[in-house]
């Protein structure tokens, strides 16, 4: 009962602290609005590709030639235009000079393709399309050398016009700017819970209420648990409000596994509170504790992609990025929302809970050794 009393007292006090409440609620919502609106283009995954022009030399004859013509006809439907190269033209040079997007040389032995690397999207499209054509063509060419009478049957067997297959590299839905910042701002503000937690017990000492608490017939552990519980409820409620607000006001997409998303965020709040509390016992002064917590939060926010996506290319950058608690949470939530990968939540939950246990252990041991709080 004492634990509940202390927790309720904490919650009441936290919700009456207007400045902190504004920071915890308004700050992420305003940032979400600004970044989500300003950077909306950066999250657009649509790429416009103009018509593609391919130069080709057809040295085939008979059945093969017909097959090539059919292929070129089909390709035109997809705005890929093939132009026959004259004998004196150097197709490779034409591509190199940027006059064409690709050069294809076909003879009875097979297909050779040259594309310009300066436009990888067009090059990839041509490659993909020609690869589908070449697979069969090369097979038929090989058969023709051994059993020429089988060529006609092979050519007509399984007529295809699906040389360009739409294969999505991404899942059906991708996060827009608002979706992205809804996640990152939520997880970032959850981590900010560490700031108030660093003052959780120390505040009682500064306010001199610690002595009055300790003079009451209750255990230190009840004070400890009650205060942590209260702080967690407050921080989690703030985060929950932000999720609801972003979902219904900003129309941010939170997927179909909201309960699991809340669970990940809850464990992050647990981590934040435990981290702040642990640091308050490790650091000698209130100022030092606050500084350590703030520096960690800022770095974690930056490398965790709270303000913009971090594309970590080097090993060190990847290591630093992966050390951010925001990376764990953001990755887990994003995978849950956009890839239905529920198992992605486990590493984040385990890391959060494990590190929380470590920091709580440090705080608990320090508390046991002290005569006061």
């Amino acid at each position, binding site marked *: *009962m*004492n634990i509940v*009393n202390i927790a309720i*007292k904490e919650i*009441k*006090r936290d919700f*009456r*602290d207007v400045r902190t409440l504004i920071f915890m609620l308004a700050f992420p919502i305003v940032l979400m609005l600004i970044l989500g609106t300003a950077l909306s283009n950066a999250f657009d995954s649509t790429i416009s590709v103009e018509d593609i022009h391919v130069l080709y030399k057809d040295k085939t004859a008979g059945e093969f030639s017909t097959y090539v013509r059919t292929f070129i006809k089909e390709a035109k439907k997809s705005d890929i235009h093939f132009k026959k190269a004259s004998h004196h033209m150097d197709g490779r040079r034409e591509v190199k000079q940027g006059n064409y997007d690709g050069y294809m040389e076909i003879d009875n032995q097979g297909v050779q393709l040259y594309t310009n690397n300066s436009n990888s999207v067009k090059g990839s499209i041509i490659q993909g399309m020609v690869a589908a054509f070449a697979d069969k063509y090369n097979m038929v060419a090989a058969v023709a050398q051994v059993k020429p009478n089988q060529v006609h049957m092979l050519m007509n067997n399984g007529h295809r016009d699906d040389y360009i297959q739409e294969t999505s590299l991404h899942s059906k839905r991708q996060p827009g700017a608002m979706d992205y910042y809804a996640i990152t701002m939520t997880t970032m503000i959850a981590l900010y819970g560490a700031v108030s937690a660093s003052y959780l017990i120390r505040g009682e000492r500064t*306010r*001199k*209420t610690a*002595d*009055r*608490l*300790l*003079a*009451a*017939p*209750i255990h230190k552990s009840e004070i400890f648990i009650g205060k942590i519980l209260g702080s967690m409820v407050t921080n989690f409620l703030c985060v929950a409000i932000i999720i609801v607000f972003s979902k219904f006001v900003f129309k941010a997409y939170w997927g179909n596994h909201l309960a699991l998303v809340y669970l990940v965020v809850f464990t992050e709040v647990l981590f934040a509170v435990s981290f702040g509390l642990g640091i308050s016992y490790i650091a000698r002064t209130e100022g030092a504790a606050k500084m350590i917590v703030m520096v960690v939060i800022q770095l974690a926010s930056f490398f965790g992609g709270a303000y913009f996506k971090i594309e970590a290319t080097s090993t060190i950058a990847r290591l630093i990025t992966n050390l951010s608690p925001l990376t764990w949470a953001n990755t887990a939530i994003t995978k849950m929302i956009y890839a239905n990968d529920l198992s992605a939540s486990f590493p984040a939950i385990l890391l959060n809970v494990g590190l929380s246990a470590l920091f709580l252990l440090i705080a608990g041991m320090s508390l046991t050794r002290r*005569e*006061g709080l």
Partner: protein
Amino acid sequence: MNILEIKNVTKKFGDFIAVDNMSLTVAEGEIFGFLGANGAGKSTTINMISGLLRPNAGEIKILGKDIGKHSHFAKRNIGIVPQDIAIYEDLTAYENVKFFAGLYGLRGSQLHERVEEALQFVGLSDKQKSYPKNFSGGMKRRLNIACAIAHRPKLIIMDEPTVGIDPQSRNYILASVKKLNEMGCTIIYTSHYMEEVEEICTRIAIIDHGKIIAEGTKEQLEAIITNTKDVWIGVKSMDNMDINKLKAISGVKAVQCEENMVKISSDIGVNNLNRIIQCLMNDGVEIRSLEEKSPNLETVFLTLTGRNLRD
């Protein structure tokens, strides 16, 4: 019955001995004054009684039970009014008292009644929904007391409860202390204001360098340093005055004359002032002023510790 027994208690902080083999008893119904300069060991002693600090040696008993073994029993019977105001500025007066009283196991209607009772006792009933951040220093001090008494403790420890407040609030608090005592509470009272201790305390202990150096009623303490009291009488002229007649008055030990002032030293406890005045008037000596000087607590403290209480 003794509500508090301290036996051979020592408390060290590193090499520093804050309380040195202290023994002390406080009986039920007393208002026990605890005097000591800053750093004398007063707060350490109070913190050990409250269960905030553990003694390195010795034992402390509340109502006959060792606080080390029965800490919850002891704490339930103690109310502490700390020197620093220990309240939450962002909880209302009612919520503050309710929260702390709730930690003593009070629930429901009983809790509500006790909270109202405590707030009424300190005169804050009409401010129960107000936040302490809007209170004056005196009101905060009173709320500080309310938080300590709502659970009706048998022993109330008041550590400098009148620091930094206006005379009106001070009088209110002193009257409250007496009233609490009349209601059956035992009070341990510390203050830098000697006159407060003289006014309300039934017994006083003086602590210095972690040791009790004197203990007793105000009169007993005064008697430690002297057995005489002095009367200073200002006269218009000493021409007709007969010093021998004055010396013959019962209890008078010495008579000294300096300009127009006569200093008459008598045994403490002898009430001979009327006879001295009568004697002078019979001789036709015109009395212009009269001042009785007996050693007060301040003098006692200064004599015993060699420093002022506010040092």
